[in-house]
């Protein structure tokens, strides 16, 4: 953990937010070892809020013979800079590669702190950031204010078109999947068998669906199940040492979500009612479940209505 002098002073002054004192708030970046040479920084299992500075996504640091490899970079320039400092201190090696798993701003806006030439993403992710980056950036500034200061939209400079990358003998497999978004990168560290799922995997934290295609997401979860691996690092929520739990939970949630919302449309519920349906006890341990259900209603309900409600207009009288 890295506590800045200013943050420490703010702590002494009590619970006053640093911004209220005209100070710069700093991110708390706390990498935990999950496998040999792999650390996970566990994001806040909560919505993007001023209290967490948008640092809700899990970030991965891999120590390779060729240098430090990062998977995702956090929400802002400030986060990206702090991450780089923490990671390089941890491994003693410069960051030589930053992967962006998918287009969402909580994972990718921190690349503003890196040379785009070392930042790699799937081609579709780069296209999606080019299309949606401005809108995401506006929304992040609106919610997070000063946390975002100086964060520019940067496009990853390297298109991933190969199935693996070798960093001086430590090799990672690069899996081009989709479903949480139009392009989701999952990564397998061959040395330790650690699976880095990006937002294809949520663990003890409800999955979010703003750009989801649930059928494709299920196919991608099948692909991850079939990939031999040990522990799994989800995009949100704690590390999954079993490697199967996060996959199973994510699969169960999106299955429940789809069938519950389908049932809601078929039962005549409006969107407010659909957002208020009971969440099964099996998900009681999931953070942000009601929040994500209501967001998913917003994302998915109009499409389900268009699919499930029959046409009733009478042809021109």
């Amino acid at each position: 953990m890295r506590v800045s002098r200013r943050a420490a002073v703010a702590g002494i002054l009590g619970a006053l937010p640093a911004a209220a004192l005209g100070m710069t708030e700093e991110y708390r970046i706390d990498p935990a070892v999950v496998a040999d040479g792999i650390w996970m920084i566990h994001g806040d299992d909560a919505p993007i809020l001023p209290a967490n500075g948008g640092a809700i996504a899990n970030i991965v640091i891999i120590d390779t013979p060729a240098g430090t490899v990062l998977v995702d970079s956090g929400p802002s320039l400030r986060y990206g800079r702090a991450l780089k400092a923490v990671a390089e201190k941890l491994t003693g090696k410069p960051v030589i590669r930053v992967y962006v798993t998918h287009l969402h701003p909580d994972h990718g806006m921190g690349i503003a702190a890196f040379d785009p030439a070392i930042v790699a993403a799937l081609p579709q992710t780069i296209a999606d950031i080019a299309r949606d980056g401005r809108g995401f950036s506006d929304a992040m500034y609106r919610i997070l204010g000063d946390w975002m200061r100086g964060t520019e939209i940067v496009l990853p400079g390297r298109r991933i078109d190969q199935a693996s990358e070798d960093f001086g003998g430590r090799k990672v497999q690069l899996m081009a999947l989709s479903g949480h978004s139009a392009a989701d990168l999952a990564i397998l560290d061959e040395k330790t068998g650690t699976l880095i799922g990006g937002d294809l995997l949520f663990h003890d934290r409800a999955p979010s669906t703003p750009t989801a295609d649930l059928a494709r997401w299920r196919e991608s979860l099948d692909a991850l199940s079939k990939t031999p691996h040990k522990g799994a690092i989800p995009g949100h929520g704690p590390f999954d040492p079993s490697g199967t739990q996060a996959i199973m939970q994510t699969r169960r949630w999106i299955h429940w979500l789809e069938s519950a919302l389908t049932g809601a449309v078929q039962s005549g519920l409006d969107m407010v009612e659909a957002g208020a349906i009971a969440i099964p006890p099996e998900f009681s341990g999931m953070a942000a479940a009601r929040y994500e259900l209501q967001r998913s209603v917003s994302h998915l309900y109009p499409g389900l209505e268009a699919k499930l409600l029959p046409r009733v207009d009478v042809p021109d009288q």
Partner: protein
Amino acid sequence: MWRQKVSLILIGTGLLAMPVPLPARAPYPADPLQSPMWQAHAKTIFGDDPVRFDPRVKMLYPEVAENQRSFPVALDARGVGQVKRMVIFADLNPIPIAIDYRPEAAEPYVATRIKLDQRTPVRGAVQLADGQWLVAGGWVDAAGGGCSAPPVSRVKGDWATHLGEMRGEAWPMSEDGSSRLRVTFRHPMDTGFVANIPTYNIEELAVKSAAGTVLGEMEIWASVSEDPAITLMPHAKAGDVLTVDARDTNGRAYLARIAVARQSAMPSATPQ
């Protein structure tokens, strides 16, 4: 101290600068939401009728405004007595009223989706048979842009191809002889706040029985979301055929017939 607070609020809302005419009627009750627009909207909507805030009226919406262009709202006034009018409005929207509904032969329930232009009170007001208005609502945080952003169909350019498409279904509800009717339209619902796109919205809707009796009718404003979706509870039994009759600001007519299903609704997904 109290006086000071009040004048601060008045300054903050700009009301101090406005001439305050002597009230011709008892003043409206103080707004628990302290909206700067409460008095103005109350005057427009309630006129001289008595008004009070009443927790039995349920103005329901999700915890988060995920989509500023389409925020789900439901106004449920079942159990407060005979209701003759129901209004859904958002104080700080440039088009405050979304729906003004008269449930002639229907349970007092209406749900739809509205645009939010900024953080605003979202309210439901229902008028009882004796003229009294009951009001409920709360502040909703919205990032903004709901009214001034072009509809998705305008951006995609496919709105005209689908204009007039209606979908819907109706289910019988239990013993009380009411049904649950859902109907959706493809319509851009242009607010007039986007450059070069004039106001264009569905403005009237009526639900009728097969015999032509009006069960409920409403005025609809452009603050209702693109591709409107409306839920009502008209009095109708299994097998009855409901007619939905609507018109937009260009005079285009929309007509749908929806038979009330044999099976009751809501077996699988019950709201908490």
